[in-house]
């Protein structure tokens, strides 16, 4: 195992912990403790923290300690405006470029979506959501788009919205996935792009309504899922 891969896996693990809400906004992060949790030395943890800071996931408190950044309403609005542009466009390209094999993969995801929804398994729903939207981006056949969306990782913020929404929210998201699949099959570019915009506006709304802090509590599930950070 190379040092680069140790560093990049520390980064991935830490980022996942942040975006899934296992580490709440405002929490002070201890380099030593994270290193112990991940069973790595401090150097890769320090590198991961620096990269997450550049990406805006982490900031420093008054004493220079790293803390998890809580998104502001403005940031949320900026992120969703750009996601609408990028993902709507990606879906439009995908509608004319997607392969039959990819359509089948999406259909399998939608089936698992419904099962996870019935079980109320929000973590599975979140995973499937990433997979579903990631696959559509790949089907756009625009490599720069895939890389940029991946680099920014905002989709993760959106999928947490999904995880913290109510049961009615998740029903709506899953039905919209099913409808997107149909539109991809039909090659209905305009309608699909409009639906993706709508889908993201709903996700934005759910996030904003649940207060931004709620994103971070995606890990704690309740009947209605929506939790505020203490």
């Amino acid at each position, binding site marked *: 195992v190379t040092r680069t891969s140790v560093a990049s896996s520390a980064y991935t693990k830490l980022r996942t912990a942040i975006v899934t809400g296992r580490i709440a906004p405002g929490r002070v992060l201890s380099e030593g403790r994270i290193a112990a949790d991940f069973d790595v030395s401090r150097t890769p943890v320090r590198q991961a923290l620096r990269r997450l800071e*550049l990406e805006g996931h982490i900031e420093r408190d008054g004493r*220079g300690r790293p803390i998890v*950044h809580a998104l502001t309403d403005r940031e949320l609005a900026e992120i969703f405006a750009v996601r609408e542009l990028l993902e709507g*466009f990606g879906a439009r390209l995908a509608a004319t470029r997607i392969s039959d094999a990819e359509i089948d993969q999406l259909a399998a995801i939608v089936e698992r979506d419904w099962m996870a929804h019935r079980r109320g398994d929000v973590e599975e729903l979140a995973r499937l959501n990433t997979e579903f939207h990631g696959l559509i981006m790949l089907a756009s056949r*625009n490599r720069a788009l895939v890389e940029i969306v991946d680099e920014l990782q905002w989709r993760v913020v959106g999928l947490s919205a999904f995880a913290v929404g109510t049961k009615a929210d998740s029903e709506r998201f899953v039905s919209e996935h099913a409808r997107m699949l149909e539109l991809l099959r039909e090659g209905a570019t305009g309608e699909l792009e409009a639906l993706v915009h709508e889908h993201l506006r709903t996700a934005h709304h759910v996030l904003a309504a649940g207060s931004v802090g709620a994103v971070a509590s995606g890990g704690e599930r309740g009947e209605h899922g929506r939790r505020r950070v203490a």
Partner: protein
Amino acid sequence: MPRETSREAIRRPAALADAAYDRLRSDLLERGPLTAGGRIVAGDLAARLGMSRTPVREALDRLGRIGYLERLDGGGYQRRRYRTRDARDLHELRLLLEPVGAELAAADRSRGPGPDARSFHADVASASGNRVLAHVIELLTERVSAMRTDLEHEGRQRSRASVERERRIAHAAVADAIRRGDGPAARRAMAEHLTFEARGVLTRTAPVEPGASGADA
């Protein structure tokens, strides 16, 4: 995204990583000696630069994510080669985002850019007031630079002076529209400018080479 949030606490390591990044980036842009030999390995490079490995490794990772380098299966990196398709992909995205940025910038004239700035596209993007949009556009323009290192050595280029002149005129048209607060005109001018520039890049892109890396679907 708040990329500038209080770096003070980590200034030293961050500054080293930035220095390594700047050095390598300009070397890649100039097709300089550091990267002439194909495979790039953090350890060797650190020794040649007289720096420690960690900042060099971080710089390589960052250059990989931005699109200057690509990772090799056996470890290390190589300069990333671009093809016509990549130019098309990038153009599609710029045409999607930058006219929107120009239109938003026109809504608040106070932030308008000057047409002579080297960082014109980044300036317009940041004048849009949407920092995420600005960040993405910056990534895209950085990638255009990465791609140009391949393309401008392929011959068939217009004279540098005439390219610069055309570019200045196009930038002035965008900047004027922004200053007048005319969003639709700013949007149109930016789209025209990008389409014109892409025509140049698309015809100058290196042909697909057998075994060229970065094969995709």
